[in-house]
């Protein structure tokens, strides 16, 4: 198991390392001059001052040197300063990251709590009208753009009915965005759970369990569910990454103050240090979660745990 997790950690480290390189290159891929953009709004900055800024950012050095400088600063926890307002990027991100994580976790919770039982029920009633109905629902759920779902929820629950607040970052505010993200993903979980359960139910060991005369409830709970949820667990890492991605849109709809909204703002503002920091943070989070999920998987599956 430790080797399994070890390879995952190595892979994750590789991902993050590649990210740092891409992120350094990013600023060079940008059409136009980032320093010009930084100082676009100031009047009377002389070319010398612009040069000065460029030098202080290391933009006059060769790309490998810049990369090393970037790494050095990175290890000191310095992700640079925002163009707008000149705040430390790390601080700006850290202020908002918890919000995004809370949103992603809450959505994940909703997705699992709704999706897994539905998938289980559909698998249990495979081929019946219940199954077909649930799966039509699921495919519709997957097809529904979550930004639209978000707007509709906002419209009904906040504007029309006034049941839920629309701004701020309190627990009540979490409900709608988490529901938006959670529902779309619940559909994915439902489908996944269903096909995984059906796979498992068609396996010989389930027949064996029935052949022993175990009641259906025990077979499902002890034999099917545990084995059938393993693929669902492996999907959780990927799904979390989708949640983080989806959060970008949903945060913008519900004014949820997370890194996603920050990133979109930053793109409009061409605030490259923030974008760089965001990409890096995002991949770190996704990698860490993926490793955690893999570790969980390793613990759950004796074939790996005992390897």
């Amino acid at each position, binding site marked *: 198991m430790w*080797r*399994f997790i070890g*390879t*995952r950690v190595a892979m994750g480290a590789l991902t993050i390392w590649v990210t740092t390189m891409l992120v350094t290159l990013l600023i060079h891929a940008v059409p136009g001059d980032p320093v010009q953009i930084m100082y676009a709004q100031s009047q009377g900055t002389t070319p010398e001052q612009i040069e000065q800024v460029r030098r202080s950012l290391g933009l006059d050095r060769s790309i490998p040197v810049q990369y090393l400088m970037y790494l050095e600063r990175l290890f000191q926890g310095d992700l640079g300063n925002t163009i707008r307002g000149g705040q430390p990027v790390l601080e700006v991100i850290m202020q908002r990251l918890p919000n995004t994580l809370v949103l992603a976790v809450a959505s994940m919770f909703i997705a699992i709590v709704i999706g897994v039982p539905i998938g289980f029920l559909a698998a249990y009633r*495979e*081929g019946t009208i219940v199954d077909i109905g649930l799966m039509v629902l699921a495919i519709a759920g997957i097809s529904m753009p979550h930004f639209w779902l978000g707007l509709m929820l906002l419209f009904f629950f906040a504007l029309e009915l006034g049941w839920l607040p629309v701004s701020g970052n309190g627990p009540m505010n979490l409900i709608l965005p988490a529901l938006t993200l959670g529902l779309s993903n619940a559909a994915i979980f439902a489908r996944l759970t269903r096909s995984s359960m059906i796979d498992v139910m068609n*396996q*010989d*060991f*389930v*027949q*064996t*369990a*029935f*052949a*022993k*005369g*175990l*009641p259906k409830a*025990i077979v499902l709970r*002890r*034999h099917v569910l*545990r*084995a059938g949820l*393993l693929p669902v667990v492996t999907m959780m890492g990927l799904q979390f990454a989708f949640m983080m991605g989806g959060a970008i849109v949903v945060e913008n709809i519900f004014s949820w103050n997370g890194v996603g909204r920050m990133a979109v703002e930053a793109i409009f503002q061409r605030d490259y240090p923030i974008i760089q920091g965001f990409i890096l943070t995002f991949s770190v989070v996704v990698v860490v979660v993926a490793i955690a999920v893999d570790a969980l998987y390793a613990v*759950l*599956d*004796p*074939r*790996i745990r*005992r*390897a």
Partner: protein
Amino acid sequence: MSSVLLSVRDLSVTHGSGTRAVPLVHSVNFDLARGQILSIVGESGSGKSMTSKALMGLLPPNVTATGEAQFRGANLLDKNIAPPRGTGIGLIFQEPMTALTPVLTIGMQLTEAMVVHGLADARDAKARAIQMLERVGIPNPKQRMTQYPHELSGGMRQRVMIAMMMLLEPDILIADEPTTALDVTVQAQILDLLRDIVRDTDVGLILITHDMGVVAEMAEDVMVMKAGRVVEAGSVHQIFQAPGDAYTRALLDAVPSVETASVDSKPTDSQALLSIRHLSKTFSGGRAFGIAASVTRAVDDVSLDIMPGETLALVGESGSGKSTLGRILARLTKADKGNVTLAGTDLLSLEGAPLRQERRKIQMIFQDPYASLDPRQSVGAAIAEPIKIQTTLSKADRAKRVAQLLSRVGLTPDMASRFPHEFSGGQRQRVSIARAIAAGPELIIADEPTSALDVSIQAQILDLLSDLKSENGLTMLFISHDLAVVRQVADRIAVMRAGRILEFGPTEAVWASPRHPYTKALIDAAPVPDPSRKRSARAHALDTFPMTPLIEAAPGHWVAL
């Protein structure tokens, strides 16, 4: 005969309903008594498993059973009565690898049903499970209880399966091809175990198999099925000695008897066509979930000569490296060490275009006839491919050649435009053979060419191969795990285990006087399709065998001792 346990009358199984209904099993009748072993034989798809599943009440959705199966005073097929699964009838599956829940411990799986059925409390159940494990011949039973299925070998898992069912003290045990997934040596042990259990506990055993050898060795009564119908039933002696039905006869005839003599051996004093020297190949382990497992020595310092015109058989159990050796010769797998020369050319050092030209001389026939044809290529195109690549024949000439080849393997030329899915398994294997001989190879490597086919068809394919051999003077490396098959076709036999050749020599010499203990175990383990020659006990295969370099024990007969 003792009291009747189970009485099946008019059992039919149907898939679907109404106009779409497809009958799978047609009014089957039989009785089973205590201590009786009833064997159901028949080729794949004949409805053997469906019959057993119907009795267990484990039919797949959309499949229904009708008729009567009286057991303990109730009709098993009555949907309103819960079948006495486990406690009444136990079922053992074919695939021990997948029949146990991978995420639960052996102990859990052994004891849970006892507890559920109220046969024992948790502690008691554990003690009995350990006892039973010992009974079925599993060493260190206490420790095994905490292990997971993947930590056990296939044979052990099958023993656990049997133990699991026996713990519930059923009256009837159904074993659905319990040994086909196992090596011959292990297979024999499991069959022995089953026979012991029937003798000791007086259960009635329904043994489902397609192997006449197993039937002859185990069963008292036989029921032969074909396409969902029972074509013949009776005592094993009656069936073997005087088969009444044509199909039964075909089945019996198809079984290559280990007793019948094989082709006449050719003198082998000419120059070797292919010579293999010190060939080795290791795999750095199969990757499971990104973990590199231990190193496998698939081929370990193998040296062999293949003479022109001969058929050399490579036998050995699963994983012994037979395919790997064959694939190295066909240049599909790279060897680590050693060299191979084909009529003077160093095969292993060739690359690029010269290699592609040389490939013409060695062709392969694979085990799975379906997978060995490109599903998106007509069989004509498949057969023409080597000709197109290796010769400059015009399109019309190629078509003519394809037609010839098709006729040669017993198909008709008009089939050239069809696609693989339009053929039966045996026909597909004929197409593969036609493709293999299309470019005029000097050596054909046949990797278990018949093991995926029904017995009746196996024989036809073997006949075709030996025809080709005698008419075209083909040289062949024949890979198989089935000694009986090998004896029928091979001039010489090489026995392989764990990547090494343990014994090789002329077929009759190896057969008549096997020198290596492993070869002996192998020959001993093979079921004999003759009920009158039932062996009571046999020497069980050892775990380790000597694996020293080969010495010539008799002229042309080498052995690692």
